[in-house]
């Protein structure tokens, strides 16, 4: 089942929740809508589910225009951010709901519910009410409930948003494995980059109701289409620069930049892991002063003062490199900058 969205637009009063959004989800694909709050991700999901009507544009599932079908007829599985489980029904009846309203025979309902209870590993919890479950268990019940009537597509709104970090990590892996088993076309909304990258095949980066970039996790991370994507996906050093002749001048430092020919003032973006530190002066390196070294889970974060640039920079080192350098607060080091990026369309001032 493919999803095809063309020029979808939705206003709430003067606020443009969606502004000509187009995207494709291939059959069996798992796509993440990634963006900050207010970027239109949830609105897009609600339009696909039939809970909102677009002002303009079309959405099709397998070529069928959704405008011709009510929410009820679409047979779309939707998992709400706060699950929206029926609080007065137990786990069994929550999962059975979609089949009960379709008046399916009792034996068929029972077989399907048991199959899903096994899938979410909550067989012994069928008589519990939602209030008697943990967050992660409710999440899985919501998913089973959405899957019960064998929906054509599955939509998940911030599926792990309300859970604590450890449960979230577990469920991510579980969702990915589940998708690999049942190959259901899936769209999920998240504001968490790690979550999008870990679970999805393709990532749609959204901002202010517009699609900024669509690509695989590696593509959007390695080749961000613009400064918004660059900033949103992880930390970045942003430096004011003079641009021209394929070069950027930042204070006393000159860097080669690929194929930019535009205005003379602009911004240069460098990821913290593209800042290289050495103890001895290397070719083209400039002096820097270590302000603070912070150990993080993946390595060291080093805050640097760089007089030649007239600015502070963040540098990320892996553990091995960090240990080899033996950095301490107040040390003097040398740094060189790699993979500096400049974007033709720069929202810069807006942030």
């Amino acid at each position, binding site marked *: 089942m493919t999803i095809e969205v063309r020029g979808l637009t939705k206003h709430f009063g003067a606020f443009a929740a969606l502004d000509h959004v187009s995207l494709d989800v291939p059959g069996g694909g798992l796509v993440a809508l990634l963006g900050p709050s207010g970027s239109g991700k949830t609105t897009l999901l609600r339009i696909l*589910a*039939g*809970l909102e009507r677009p002002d303009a544009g079309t959405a099709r599932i397998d070529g069928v225009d959704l405008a011709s079908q009510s*929410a*009820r007829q*679409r*047979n*779309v599985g*939707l998992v*709400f951010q*706060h699950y*929206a*489980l*029926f*609080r*007065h029904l137990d786990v069994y009846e929550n999962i059975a*709901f*979609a089949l*009960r*309203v*379709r008046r399916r025979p009792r034996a068929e309902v029972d077989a399907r519910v048991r199959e899903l209870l096994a899938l979410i590993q909550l067989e012994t919890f069928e008589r519990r009410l939602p209030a008697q479950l943990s967050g992660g268990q409710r999440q899985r019940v919501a998913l089973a*409930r*959405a899957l*019960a*009537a064998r929906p054509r597509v599955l939509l998940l709104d911030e599926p792990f948003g309300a859970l604590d970090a450890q449960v979230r990590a577990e469920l991510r892996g579980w969702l990915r494995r589940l998708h690999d088993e049942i190959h259901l076309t899936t769209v999920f909304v998240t504001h968490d980059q790690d979550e999008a990258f870990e679970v999805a095949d393709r990532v749609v980066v959204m901002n202010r109701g517009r699609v900024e970039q669509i690509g695989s996790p590696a593509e959007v991370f390695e080749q961000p289409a613009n400064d918004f994507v660059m900033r949103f996906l992880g930390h970045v050093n942003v430096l004011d620069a003079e641009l021209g002749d394929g070069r950027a001048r930042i204070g006393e430092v000159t860097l080669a930049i690929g194929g930019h020919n535009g205005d003379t003032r602009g911004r240069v973006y460098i990821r913290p892991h593209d800042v290289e530190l050495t103890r001895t002066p290397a070719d083209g390196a400039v002096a820097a002063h270590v302000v603070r070294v912070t150990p993080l889970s993946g390595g060291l974060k080093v805050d640097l003062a760089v007089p030649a640039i007239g600015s502070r920079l963040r540098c990320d080192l892996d553990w091995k490199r960090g240990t080899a350098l033996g950095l301490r607060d107040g040390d003097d080091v040398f740094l060189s900058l790699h993979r500096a990026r400049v974007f033709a369309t720069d929202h810069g001032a807006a942030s």
Partner: protein
Amino acid sequence: MGAPARGARMMETRGIAAPLAAAATDEPAWVRRIVIAVAIAFVGAFVLVPLAAVFAEAFKAGLAAYGRAITDPAALSAVKLTFLAAAIAVPLNVVFGIAASWAIARFRFPGRSILTALIDLPLAVSPVIAGMVFVLLFGKQGLIGPWLTGHGIQVIFALPGIVLATTFVTFPFVARELIPVMEAQGAEEEEAAIVLGATGWQTFLRITLPKIKWGLLFGVVLCTARAMGEFGAVSVVSGHIRGRTNTLPLHVEILYNEYEYQAAFAVASLLVVLALASLVARRIIGRRVEAT
């Protein structure tokens, strides 16, 4: 090294917090005693004594007289009419209350705040005025009264008028109970039901109704109690025709005006029993409403 020090600091904080909390809530014993005594004396003087007086007066001439008073044909007819009026008015207000609270809690529409305010109108307006409005509309000199009379329909001094007046004075009760319940619960579960393939009616029966049932029942109890006890509005439209258009409260008044004190209090004791039953029902249901 750090952990014990932190533990000690927490102990200190707790040591300071405890006396502060005690000082804030513990009034001197004599203040407590006076406040409690005032409350009990007030309830005794204004509730228990009159309540006891009703039953004392009702049974003054013995059980037999009590039985005669409440099995008198006029009294029985008043009981029947009271229950009939409530049996029509309460379901009407259940339908209206669900519709109004659904509209107010779920939708944003022009006139929403006006509708919310108007629901309270019967509580603000004197019931006598409400009754007079219906006389103005449906009476012999009224706006649509003559047309109705021409078609053989009598509203004023008949059952329809009593039902109309009862419905009017009791319509806030169900809606007012349900609006906060529906607002607190939000629409997400209904949305989930629709996406899962339920029709509007299935969604209402399977999701909305179970969620609001205790609030609804609470509203129904309040509504019923008021419907059976209503005096002012019904008095204006009923015409006090003994055995035909007298409800229980009106019958009590007539007996009282005819100096039949014992009979008046005997019939009044029926109303008191109904009120006490609704009080017990409210206690029980109110706890369930809070739990949902």
